[in-house]
């Protein structure tokens, strides 16, 4: 009996109005995409067919979708966590880079047994990224520097720092523009699934990311720390009045946000890429994290779902190229989905309009 109740509660939590509107927004976004595809002279059916097949037709594609979604779960969480505490973290991009860089360095330079190496690399990388995120929090608490500016600047500084480090002679693998690969003792790829997923690097990172999402949800809503951070997010003055150290909270929540994005970078290096490369432009993990966070309504559970959605659409959508459809259509689809999520009141407007009409009819 009790089980049934909790189950119902969980379902009730997921299938609420926001959820339904999100689904509607996704449908609307796909419709806009369909229009663009049609105008370009392709078959909508074939195009979306290619997208769906691209994700679901083989276990290994599902695996790749999951792999691709994993960093987005964490960068999405990073942005969502900051939002919940009243801060706008545009800096997930840079925090990701720092996490990845540190993981790549420790994974290569340290020689340790896996049991120590893996957690050490992960934890230190996350701490480094937390420190990086914390800078923005500190600048805000101490100097009142708006975190939007500071995180934008820190993104670029992270990018160039990473490039600088990678191009050092002891770090850069000759003949490439990348660092040396990390040792196997720092890798978290699951090799025994090879028979099912082929060379796709399914790794423990996905599980870790989901666990982190649960932990973050717990911290936000079930702990005193989460209470404090949310209070500061909603009303600094009242929080201060209630005895909460507002400045400390700001630094802490930016640090946690940074750590989350850094975890994304670290897991990506440890599970998928094994190295970091010189970047000539941002890779977009952090910026896409903003979209993921917003599609997921800034809730940890929502972020997990929307990361998979985002990963699926980008991975599957790229398969439309086979038909000759330009990849930009994918960006238009994603943009439309986000746009319709922003304007979910359009749907409210319509639902109201129709129920009103219906009532009028019934009245007569």
């Amino acid at each position, binding site marked *: 009996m009790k089980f049934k109740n909790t189950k119902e509660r969980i379902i009730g939590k997921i299938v609420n109005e926001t959820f339904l509107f999100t689904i509607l927004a996704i449908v609307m976004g796909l419709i806009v995409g369909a229009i663009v595809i049609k105008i370009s002279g392709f078959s909508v059916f074939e195009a979306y067919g290619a997208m769906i097949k691209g994700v679901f037709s083989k276990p290994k594609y599902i695996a790749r979708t999951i792999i691709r979604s994993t960093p987005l779960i964490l960068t999405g969480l990073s942005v969502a966590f900051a939002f919940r505490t009243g801060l706008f973290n545009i800096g997930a991009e840079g925090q990701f880079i720092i996490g990845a860089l540190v993981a790549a360095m420790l994974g290569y330079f340290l020689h340790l047994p896996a049991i120590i190496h893996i957690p050490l690399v992960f934890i230190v990388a996350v701490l480094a990224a937390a420190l990086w995120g914390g800078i923005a929090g500190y600048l805000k608490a101490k100097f009142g520097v708006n975190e939007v500016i500071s995180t934008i600047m820190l993104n670029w500084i992270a990018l160039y720092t990473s490039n*600088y480090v990678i191009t050092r002679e002891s770090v850069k693998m000759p003949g490439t523009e990348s660092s040396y690969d990390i040792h196997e003792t720092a890798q978290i790829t699951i090799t025994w699934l090879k028979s099912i997923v082929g060379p796709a690097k399914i790794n423990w990172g996905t599980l870790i990311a989901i666990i982190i999402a649960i932990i973050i949800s717990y911290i936000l809503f079930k702990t005193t720390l989460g209470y404090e951070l949310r209070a500061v997010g909603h009303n600094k003055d009242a929080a201060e009045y209630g005895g909460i150290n507002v400045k400390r909270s700001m630094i802490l929540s930016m640090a946690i946000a940074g750590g989350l994005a850094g975890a994304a970078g670290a897991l990506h290096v440890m599970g998928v890429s094994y190295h970091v490369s010189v970047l000539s432009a941002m890779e977009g993990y952090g910026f896409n994290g903003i979209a993921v966070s917003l599609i997921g309504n800034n809730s940890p559970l929502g972020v997990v779902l929307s990361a998979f959605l985002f990963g699926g659409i980008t991975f599957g959508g790229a398969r439309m190229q086979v038909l000759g459809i330009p990849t930009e*259509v994918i960006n238009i689809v994603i943009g439309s989905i*986000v746009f319709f999520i922003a304007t979910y009141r359009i749907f409210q407007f319509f639902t109201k309009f129709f129920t009103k009409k219906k009532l009028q009819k019934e009245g007569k």
Partner: protein
Amino acid sequence: MWKDIALILGTTLMYATPLIYGALGAVFSENSGVVNIGIEGMMTIGAFSGAAATFIFADLYGPAWWVPWLGFLIAGLAGGFFGLLHAIASVTFNADQVISGIAINFLGPGLAIYLSGRIFEGSTTTPAIPLEAKLVRPFHEMLKNKPILGMVFDQYVSVYIAFLFVCIAWYILYKTKLGLRIRAVGEHPKAADTLGINVYKIRYFSVILSGILSGLGGASLSMAIIANFRPTLISGQGYIALAAMIFGKWKPQGAMWACLLFGATTALQIYLGSPQVGWKISTHLLSMIPYVITLIVLMGFVGKTHAPAADGIPYEKGKR
């Protein structure tokens, strides 16, 4: 010596220009109470539309004087169209303005590159506009034989328009009826509403204007600094413009100074990397200079920045 200074000044002006347009756009939008993180997307669509339209017109009608101006205008309109989208979402439907802005940042580049492919045989880069069809350089003849002055002032008209716009924006915001209303709506929309000011109309106006300015900013890159659109052209400058607007405390002149600071630090980066200086320092470290200096300057700025009180909050009539 003079040459170096002239070069730094010239680079500063050139680099700051697209940012100034974007930042001015953000100034209008945010002073009316609508956060606009979509500047990046609006600049991209503007850059594409301006370059594509100018090329096409130059191709059809030759490099007549009006061709670049028409292209510039179209860039503004294209940006304005995305401003309209942002306004529909965030003013009419009370959307979360950040979400809507992020959507614009996907849609702008997506559409720009898509259209480029459709129009120019699959190419994501538009063909180069001939020199004669680019925006004019008003002082080009005058400075022909003055190389040092030329380095500073032989700029495209878009540069001077940017500074002119700063003055106009300042005048509109602080000296006119319209500006008073824009700021009132951004500070306290309900108060404005009770005085019979149409909050929605003012916000629509400001957000569309913001799109137009951002579009022009994009075009000032694709029609002056270079002569075509390419996907990597804007690469983050919309965000920098946004940062400059905040740095400039939501004021046109403040935003301008912030953009100039950013331009100047970039010029410094280039100067320090030049063979004349001959610093043997990694370009990766040099590239960091503008961002690091900006952060340091920000720290030194005492006093918190003050956003318009209603910035980012949708206005719903009849709600308290």
